[in-house]
């Protein structure tokens, strides 16, 4: 979809490709290749698919093979991967923050495992994880104006020059990323899976709590 929000699309694809190559392996890659890109406006698929009926459980839809569900899971996974990368970068630059940041980072590893069951979660060496590459790649794309979920996090992970920042600005950046992720989780629910909606809402709750905790440290 190069004609609509090229930066956002590129960064998401890049994130997923790197995720497939470095984390998930061949099986993950084949799964990802079937991943349909979301429309350029982020909220649109949910609203249009939802239609009139209030029932959140449409029979036959909403299973793990539902393409819309798969696409949503991968959008969220891209956000979680970007957050993991941001934490890894912060931990590498400021090891003294490990006690405060490591538990928060672990929450995101659990989120990633929950939205993509069976995918190996990246363990936590604070330096040289594949996810760091993701953040750097995502940063190079232009900031999109779309409200699409993963754009909010992936495009803002690690502004240029963040490496030399002191602990307070790093904490502030992480808080902003968490708040963006929490906001994205409010606007990107599946049309046909109540249990996934429940999970994503909870992940958003965790991210909102992270943001407040990080700001309290700051």
């Amino acid at each position, binding site marked *: 979809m190069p004609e609509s929000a090229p930066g956002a699309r590129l960064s998401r694809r890049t994130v997923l490709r790197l995720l497939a190559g470095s984390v998930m392996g061949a099986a993950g890659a084949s799964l990802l290749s079937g991943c349909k890109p979301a429309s350029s406006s982020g909220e649109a698929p949910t*609203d249009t698919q*939802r239609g009139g009926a*209030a*029932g*959140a459980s449409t029979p036959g839809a909403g299973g793990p093979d539902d393409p819309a569900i798969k696409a949503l899971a991968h959008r969220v996974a891209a956000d979680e991967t970007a957050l993991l990368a941001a934490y890894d970068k912060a931990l590498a630059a400021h090891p003294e923050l490990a006690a405060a940041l490591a*538990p*928060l980072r*672990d*929450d995101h590893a*659990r*989120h990633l495992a*929950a939205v993509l069951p069976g995918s190996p979660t990246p363990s936590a060496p604070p330096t040289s994880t594949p996810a760091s590459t993701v953040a750097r790649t995502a940063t190079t794309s232009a900031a999109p104006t779309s409200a699409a979920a993963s754009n909010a996090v992936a495009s803002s992970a690690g502004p240029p020059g963040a490496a030399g920042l002191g602990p307070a600005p790093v904490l502030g950046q992480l808080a902003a990323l968490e708040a963006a992720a*929490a906001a994205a*989780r*409010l*606007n990107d*629910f599946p*049309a046909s899976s*109540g*249990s*996934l*909606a*429940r*999970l994503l*809402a*909870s*992940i*958003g*709750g*965790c*991210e*909102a*709590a*992270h943001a*407040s*905790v990080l700001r309290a440290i700051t």
Partner: protein
Amino acid sequence: MSEPRRSTSPATGSTPPPTTRPTTPPPAALAGALLAAVEAENAAIYGYSLAGARLASAHDRLAALGDYDVHRAQLQAVAGWAADRGLTPPPPAAVYALPTATVSDAAAASGLLAQVEESTAARYADLVAVATGSLQRAAALALQAAAVREARWRGGCVAFPGLVGRLPGL
């Protein structure tokens, strides 16, 4: 759903019903989740009034007072969501069963409030699972607010607020 109410202006007690939404009876799961959320807000108000005075520092007591007011406002909001859909929430109970029977000291008070918020988050998670559109978003936002309060009283975050004890399988 045997509720036959079809009027566009249901008698819903004190909460003023918006006039834009046609009042068709909600599915049973949605009705149950809405009423459970109302109940959770009533229980939270009860929990805060019980635990607030036991908190040690003035800072915590002030925070609890603010949270208490938030829950009172949120109760009105949720009751409004229910009334919009022709539901009449029951009045608050005199006593709610809380996870902690006695609140003997400040630590117990903080722990109780953390559990109150986790329970509140769980009811909003249930509502997210069955709601759609703006109601689903509002429930998710309420879950986030509960998770923020929970983290403050707990002194740390949980990975899946509102789902504690529930994963896997959701």
